[in-house]
């Protein structure tokens, strides 16, 4: 069965030189796609988790009594929100990468402790995290002052109020906007190609450069994979939104 499908695509490549689905019959190319997909998944999951953590922490620090802390968070948001993610990737990898510790396996090579994959995760998480801080702030500001005062009068500390009262309610308000930002984040992982992170786009571009007849087939796969990936994320977020719904609260 598989052989006949492979044979069919082999013939298709011969008769239609622009539709060479090489990754369906050449195991080497299939493996490259697999590696790229795995890297994209790792990047996406790591960045989504870290950026949400950054968002939650940043939003809490924004309510700090210390002006210096508030100014620091504001500075962070302005820096990461106002520069393109592509520039951030290049800056982190090529500029900051020079100042991180390295080890040398052969006396010349300087392998940095933080690899290009590491820098991509750091850079993209901080980029999306800056937006997430603002998204959570919007949610927090939607919580009525009276709710907070009620918790305060029960003797809860600032952290307790944030973790047990404000955040659970604010999270529900923030989810639709968070959903948007995380979808964007998953799509932005493709930009890691500029620092040669071997994610899906990198592998597909490499394949259609090695086999120029495979270009259309690679483009097609790219669309299918990203539509699926983002579709799964959106589906998951929507289900979460529904599961967290409190009847009578919010819209």
């Amino acid at each position, binding site marked *: 069965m598989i052989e006949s499908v492979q044979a069919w695509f082999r013939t298709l490549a011969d008769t239609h030189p*622009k539709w060479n689905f090489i990754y369906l019959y050449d195991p080497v190319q299939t493996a490259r796609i697999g590696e790229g997909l795995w890297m994209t998944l790792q990047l996406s999951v790591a960045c989504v988790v870290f950026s949400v953590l950054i968002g939650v922490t940043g939003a809490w620090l924004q309510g700090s009594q210390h002006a210096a802390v508030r100014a620091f968070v504001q500075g962070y948001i302005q820096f990461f929100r106002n520069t393109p993610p592509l520039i951030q990737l290049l800056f982190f990898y090529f500029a900051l990468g020079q100042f991180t510790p390295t080890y040398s396996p052969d006396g010349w090579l300087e392998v940095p402790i933080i690899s290009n994959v590491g820098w991509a995760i750091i850079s993209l998480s901080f980029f999306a995290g800056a937006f997430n801080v603002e998204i959570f702030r919007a949610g927090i500001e939607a919580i009525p002052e009276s709710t907070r005062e009620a918790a305060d009068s029960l003797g809860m500390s600032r952290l307790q109020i944030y973790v047990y009262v404000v955040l659970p309610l604010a999270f529900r308000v923030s989810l639709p906007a968070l959903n948007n930002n995380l979808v964007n984040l998953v799509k932005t992982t493709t930009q890691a190609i500029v620092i040669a992170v071997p994610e899906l786009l990198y592998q597909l571009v490499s394949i259609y450069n*090695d086999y120029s007849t495979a270009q259309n087939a690679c483009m097609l796969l790219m669309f299918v994979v990203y539509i699926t990936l983002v579709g799964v994320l959106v589906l998951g977020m929507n289900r979460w939104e529904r599961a967290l719904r409190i009847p009578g609260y919010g819209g």
Partner: protein
Amino acid sequence: MRKNIVSRGLSGAALAGLLAGSFSGVAAAECTNDVWNQVMKRGKVVVGIKADYKPWGYRGEDGSLIGMEADMAKDVADAMGVDLELVPVQSSNRMQFLEQGKIDMMIATMSDRPDRRKIVGITQPNYYTSGTNVMSPKALALTEWENLRDKPVCGKQGAFYNKIVSERYGAKIVAFTGNAEAKQALRDKKCIAWVYDDSSIMSDLSSGNYGEFEMPLASEDDNPWGLAVPLAERHCVFGNFMSGMTYNWHQSGRLIELEKKWGIQATKYLADQHDRFVDWLAGQ
């Protein structure tokens, strides 16, 4: 009677029209010369060349595209009697630009490969050749390709030999989108070598900016370069015109002259082609 003549005349005209139509139909299936005609109509040819491949195609101090391939493009425009517009292209998008009509033709340091001939109209004869080599630090003193096994080697997205070097010698290719990023990564010691065309590495080394680097290996996979017109016009006016241009460039020694002008080390290939296409009446 009169009606009869008119109708006979009409049917005759229809028949003639039908015949003419069928003939032009046959011609249309083979050579429409769309791009060529469009170039002539707008009085300007758009040529894709490299912008990061000194001294073939690169940006001069004023930002304009110059180099050996820019001069070749100028020769083409002059012979066609039209203006020239140069568009910068990259290894990973040059064929797509030509396919989509963003450029009318390209002279962009492209190796002539069988799978590329299926996508763009690469014309004969080839105008240059280069092999694959690496630029690596003198400190490492590489001696053979096997030294690259399992080591990170910087490369460029879109070069056909990335695959060959990783399959044949087990090098771990880290491919960047641009030459600048890849060479920066080499200087930052993120890889042990930069694999690229020997001709380009040679001109980088002679620029004096790479004092602690060398090109230590024997060049491999010598591969002629091809300029390209749209695939559909490979055997039509445009393709035949470019074959003629290239033939005359070789015969007149124009390419050898340009090679000298841009400070490129003289290649045996151009000298051989010059001899091969020598005019038998020359010097008589």
